[in-house]
């Protein structure tokens, strides 16, 4: 069975390490916050100027002056801090944030990522994505393996305008966990019950398979 979006988030949460500062993008990445493993302390950074981001406020306690980068009302945990946008991106470019998780429209086998623009159709802007991918030590892409038309999102070369070059290290999709290597997408894990053949068929880029590929433990 292919993973649900929640399960993708759950699998990515296994990558978290104690003491990390983490930036979660909009969409599936946001869900990762719901599955932080026991015994692991991390702090969530929101690039609009918040570290130590907490859950959504209780109804009636929403504060227009306390939002995340998705413009959603949030809370700040004890020990959290607030800062301006220049400081926020100093944290990001200065590699004080250990992990960035974000969504993508396309990823190429050399680690290029495209997630901000479809020429002539969707022109919303890159927000903080270009700063994040240009600087983060660890970038995990959370996405579906194929798009709505069933076409692979793991490509030899991106067709859409790039967000960053050679930056993605790891990809978790509804079908597989993959690593970007010199030899192409290295298959690390399969979704439970998903065959290597299925993953091959859904991957346009070079898929590099070495030995037995275990199933994910969700």
């Amino acid at each position, binding site marked *: 069975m292919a993973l649900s979006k929640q399960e993708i988030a759950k699998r990515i949460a296994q990558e978290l390490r104690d003491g990390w500062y983490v930036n979660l993008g909009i969409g599936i990445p946001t869900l990762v916050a719901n599955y932080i493993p026991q015994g692991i302390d991390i702090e969530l950074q*929101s*690039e*609009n*100027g*918040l570290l130590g981001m907490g*859950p*959504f*406020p*209780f*109804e009636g*306690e*929403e*504060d*227009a*002056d*306390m*939002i*995340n*980068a*998705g*413009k*959603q*009302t*949030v809370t*700040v945990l004890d020990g959290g801090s*607030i*800062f*301006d*946008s*220049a400081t*926020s*991106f100093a944290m*990001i*470019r200065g590699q004080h944030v250990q992990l960035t998780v974000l969504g993508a429209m396309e990823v190429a086998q050399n680690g*290029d990522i495209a997630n901000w623009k479809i020429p*002539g159709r969707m*022109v*919303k*802007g*890159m*927000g*903080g*994505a*270009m*700063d994040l991918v*240009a*600087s983060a030590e660890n970038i995990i892409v959370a996405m579906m393996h194929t798009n709505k038309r069933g076409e692979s999102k793991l490509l030899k070369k991106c067709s859409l*305008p*790039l*967000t*960053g*070059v*050679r930056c993605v290290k790891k990809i978790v999709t509804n079908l597989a966990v993959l690593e970007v290597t010199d030899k192409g997408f290295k298959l690390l894990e399969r979704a439970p019950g998903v065959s290597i053949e299925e993953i091959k068929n859904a991957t346009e880029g070079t898929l590099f398979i070495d030995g037995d590929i275990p199933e994910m433990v969700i």
Partner: protein
Amino acid sequence: MINKVVINVEEALKGVKSGMTFMLGGFGLCGIPENSIAQLVKLGITDLTCISNNAGVDDFGLGQLLQKRQIKKMISSYVGENDEFERQMLSGELEVDLIPQGTLAERCRATGAGIPAFYTPAGYGTEVAVGKETREFNGKMYVLEHAFKPSFAFVKAWKGDSAGNLIYKGTARNFNPMMAMAGQITVAEVEELVPVGELDPNQIHTSGIFVQRLFQGKDYEKRIEQRTVTPKL
């Protein structure tokens, strides 16, 4: 103390003209200078270049200036919440310069800090870097980005004193402190104007030196874009 207080928004915006470049603080609708935007709409000046992280929503924030076709060019990082913006941009009525958010923040900071340009890794190898100088430092590639030249900067703070010192609340801080530093004339509107001596100097976010005009704002709507809540058990 030098007194920065002006009597109202009309006084605060004296000298704004068609064709000028403005910076406007805020992230989404959080921390935007609502009173100054409303006054710009009222004045009806046109051909504006606006530097602001977002472009408001269709009927609020900078969206109000877009509806009236007062903006010629937007310089932003993300404009996804505004259909009118997208329409004007795709039809070519509106010039748009989309730039990475961290680059935008740093360009604002550089403007106020006397730094003409700086190198950043953001956007290297993408269309953002086309036509820009690039350079390698320690094996990594960077793009040269320049400071801005805004005539006015409009910022919003929670509290301000008559010397122009500002304190922001929560994530309404965002771009406001850097933009406050960057304006040739910086206009600050505050929710609460207090006499000098009331604010703790240790807690000031923007020093009064950066603010030329300050006024007591009114009728803040502080609209929430995405109201997300945790249900009470």
